[in-house]
């Protein structure tokens, strides 16, 4: 166990609470990822870790380094900003890829396309290719 930096008590309690809350959020998200049944259900819980988990732990880091150096330290916000911006993009792309794969395989659980001829491997006319 590494000894933590020497902060005043109020800062230590706040940093510890924020870090534990963020880690608990991430743990909840991972348990959800483990337990949910279908892929489209499993897309949702990891965002708990990448939104609120990241925000809380980054807030703990900002508070800790601001108190340690006695000046505002905001460079950790870069991580929160970046993760918050990129997670929706990646999960949208992943969900679209999974939907495409399920449709190509003719899986009955996903909603069908209006234009069935857009799918390869099935009867389609030349205009859609």
């Amino acid at each position, binding site marked *: *166990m*590494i*000894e*933590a*930096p*020497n*902060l*005043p*008590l109020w*800062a*230590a*309690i706040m*940093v*510890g*609470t924020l*870090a*534990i809350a*963020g*880690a*608990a959020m*991430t*743990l909840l*998200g*991972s*348990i959800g*990822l*483990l337990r949910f049944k279908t*892929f489209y259900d*499993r*897309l949702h819980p*990891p965002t708990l*870790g*990448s939104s609120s*988990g*990241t925000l809380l*732990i*980054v807030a*703990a*880091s900002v508070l*800790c*380094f601001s108190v*340690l150096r006695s000046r505002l330290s905001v*460079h*950790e916000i*870069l*991580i929160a900003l*970046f*993760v918050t911006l*990129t*997670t929706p*993009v*990646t*999960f949208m*792309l*992943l969900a*679209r*890829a*999974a939907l*495409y*794969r399920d449709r190509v395989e003719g899986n009955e659980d996903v909603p069908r396309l209006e234009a069935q001829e857009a799918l390869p491997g099935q009867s389609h006319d030349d205009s859609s290719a």
Partner: protein
Amino acid sequence: MSLSVLTWALSLAQVMLGLSLICVTYRIVTGPRAQDRVLGLDSLYICAMLMLVVFGIQTGRTLYFEAALIIALLGFTSTLALAKFLMRGEIIE
């Protein structure tokens, strides 16, 4: 007093993040399809990045912040490339 509070709190946070890493790794190993494994990889790098940030708080150095930023950047790219690969079958067309 405040020293032990912060030490125990950060250790507890690290144990929680380690447990979530185990959950995510289980999903990567057993995930029934490729998209589940990609999703698990995405959550894995988020958990590892948060672990590094907590480690940075614990040691009081900014070195770990830079490592966490690089993990966030490259993890985004890797998930994007894998999603594109699942969609198209190739990455650079």
